């Protein structure tokens, strides 16, 4: 019998494709078979203005990424002696001799370079080669990975993390709006993430500059610049493109973050355009990923075909995202009616539990009821917190055995309140609750008491604020 190998051992650090079971990148291995051999690896220094493209150990130019409009290299700034991300774009032949096009590019590039914001990768310098064949700009080098690579490697993000990212992107859009800039090519691979989910949007404003440099381009002539998958419907039809296009693209990016899929994929521009225009949003993807309703609602509005039905500005979107996130932080998926019921139940729980904490008979009745309710809760959705529930039940049994010294009155109050009166005690427990079943009882009691108190405190705070 063959031993099944691990189906995935991560993504290739060079090209981002999944590795095979041996940890090798098949794509890299095949691609090497197609590459031209460079006879002298030291030959041909690739330089753009003050920037010299760095090489990997094998002599190849150090590509950080490549997209529809150009290649991004790791490069050295020979003057300021720092490393940068250098984006190099080939200017379409038709646009090379035009002074008007050049002026437009420089105007847009200057505006992009003037934008300074913590969530935007700074543009240090830009220029064009003397023969006008290429333009380039040097950006702040971000240590991290793109949102696309992150999702490809680890799978979709949870709603909370996805919102944290989306809010930062929205902040960047707000700052850009103040400079009269729109991105026009917002997508997961233009979102850089640092290790603690700090966002840096790259290529800000430059997409438009490059598009303009190519003259009047539209989708129907096959010269669509950027990534159609995340582009707004109006970008396909030559309609007015304004900040609401970026809002649409942010919606698509957020959708991708929580599902790992684009809302309207397709193999050709026409297919994508038609799907955007005629197919409804595949909301089933969100439901399958258990995306909370408020977020589903927000995604629907940001991805509306009619720009007039989307949030009117980046600021409005940022506020909507913030509200959505606060709701999720309080309790994912709780509607206002349910929240009110919970709030009432919780107040009753505390009052009752405190009242009977010193009365063994009343306490026992509460424990029995709590145990019954806890046993009825389905295990499946709460795999990680199941241990927590088991610990609570263990404490109840300890109480029945008369092992009072293990449990403080305070702990009893909190445990009873959590188990007996809240519809689902797991809702209050953070996702990363450690497995408590393996530590010694004293430690368990300490942890349970502390965690329960803190989580119920948080619930109380929210409940008070909600009123």
């Amino acid at each position: 019998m063959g031993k099944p190998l691990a189906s995935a051992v991560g993504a290739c650090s060079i090209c981002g494709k999944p590795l095979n079971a041996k940890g090798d990148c098949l794509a890299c291995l095949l691609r090497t078979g197609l590459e031209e051999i460079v006879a002298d690896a030291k030959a041909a220094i690739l330089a753009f203005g003050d920037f010299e493209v760095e090489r990997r150990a094998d002599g190849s130019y150090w590509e950080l990424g490549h997209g529809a409009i150009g290649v991004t290299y790791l490069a050295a700034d020979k003057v300021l002696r720092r490393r940068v991300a250098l984006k190099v774009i080939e200017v379409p032949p038709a646009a090379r001799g035009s002074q008007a096009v050049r002026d437009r590019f420089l105007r847009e590039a200057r505006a992009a370079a003037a934008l300074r914001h913590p969530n935007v990768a700074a543009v240090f310098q830009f220029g064009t080669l003397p023969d006008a064949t290429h333009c380039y700009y040097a950006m702040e080098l971000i240590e991290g990975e793109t949102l696309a690579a992150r999702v490809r490697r680890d799978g979709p993000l949870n709603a909370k993390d996805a919102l944290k990212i989306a809010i930062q992107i929205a902040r960047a859009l707000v700052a850009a709006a103040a400079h009269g800039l729109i991105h026009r090519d917002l997508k997961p691979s233009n979102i850089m993430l640092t290790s603690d989910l700090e966002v840096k949007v790259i290529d800000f404003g430059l997409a438009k500059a490059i598009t303009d440099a190519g003259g009047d381009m539209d989708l129907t002539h096959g010269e669509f610049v950027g990534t159609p998958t995340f582009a707004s419907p109006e970008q396909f039809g030559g309609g007015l493109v304004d900040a609401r296009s970026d809002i649409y693209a942010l919606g698509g990016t957020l959708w991708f973050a929580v599902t790992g899929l684009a809302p309207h994929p397709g193999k050709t521009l026409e297919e994508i355009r038609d799907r955007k225009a005629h197919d409804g949003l595949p909301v089933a993807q969100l439901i399958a990923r258990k995306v909370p309703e408020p977020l589903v609602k927000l995604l629907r509005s940001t991805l509306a075909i009619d720009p007039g039905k989307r949030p009117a500005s980046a600021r409005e979107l940022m506020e909507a995202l913030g509200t959505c996130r606060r709701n999720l932080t309080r309790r994912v998926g709780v509607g206002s009616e349910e929240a009110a019921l919970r709030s009432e139940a919780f107040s009753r729980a505390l009052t009752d539990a405190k009242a009977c904490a010193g009365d063994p008979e009343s306490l026992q009745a509460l424990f029995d009821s709590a145990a019954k309710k806890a046993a009825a809760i389905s295990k499946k959705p709460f795999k990680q917190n199941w241990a927590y529930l088991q610990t609570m039940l263990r404490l109840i049994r300890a109480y029945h055995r008369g092992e009072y010294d293990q449990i403080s009155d305070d702990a009893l109050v909190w445990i009873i309140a959590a188990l007996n009166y809240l519809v689902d005690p797991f809702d209050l427990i953070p996702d990363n609750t450690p497995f408590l079943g393996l530590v010694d009882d004293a430690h368990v009691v300490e942890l349970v008491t502390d965690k329960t108190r803190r989580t119920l405190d948080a619930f109380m705070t929210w409940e008070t604020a909600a009123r």
Partner: protein
Amino acid sequence: MFPSTHWSVVLAAGRSQPEPEMAGAALAELCRVYWAPLYGFVRSRGHTMHDAQDLTQSFFAHVLEHKVYARVDRRKGKFRSFLLASLKNFLGDTADKERTLKRGGAQIFLPLHEEQVQEAESLFQTHSGMRNEDRLFDRSWAEALVAAALERLSADYKRDAKEQLFRELRIFIAGGAEPPPTYAELTDRLGITESTLRSHVTRLRARYREALRTEVRRTVDNEKQVDRELRELLHVLTEM
């Protein structure tokens, strides 16, 4: 001079009766290398491990016995396409399949190691989630192709007593989860200068490239098809 295990040799021999042994030997060697993708394809049709082994072996016997390769249209004659189409026909032919199974998987004419069978099963398990059986086959084919090239390269380095060098520099052709080490790390580890290291890496890439293209060359009919075959397999990988 053509290598004896070249697919074009099989094609040529299929049409010239005087060289049947040559064709048989060449085909058997090619089939040994690409046994796993075929086995995986049979498994994807729902056959048990044991039956899949028997059927794969029987399929090769059938190809040789009936000289199926002699009927290949040379203009369309890629080994990969030929094997997949022939296997589909073979599996579709119930009577033939039952007959070969009844005789106990017939002749085990391909000398298979247990390890090879296990690897083929592991490969199948790894990709068994793929819905499209043709894509599963192509993916497994690509795996077998690069494995053969890497095996050949590794043997060359071993022969030159440069196994450690190969192990250290392998990441520059095969990628990996971790970024390639820096020059400084490698020069320290290997005790060589940076310029020597650079030339080692360049040479390794060139040698691997040639090993891979040689391997592909064995399965296509002419040089032009080498690039096309590599691009096609790369396309299969990138669209997943």
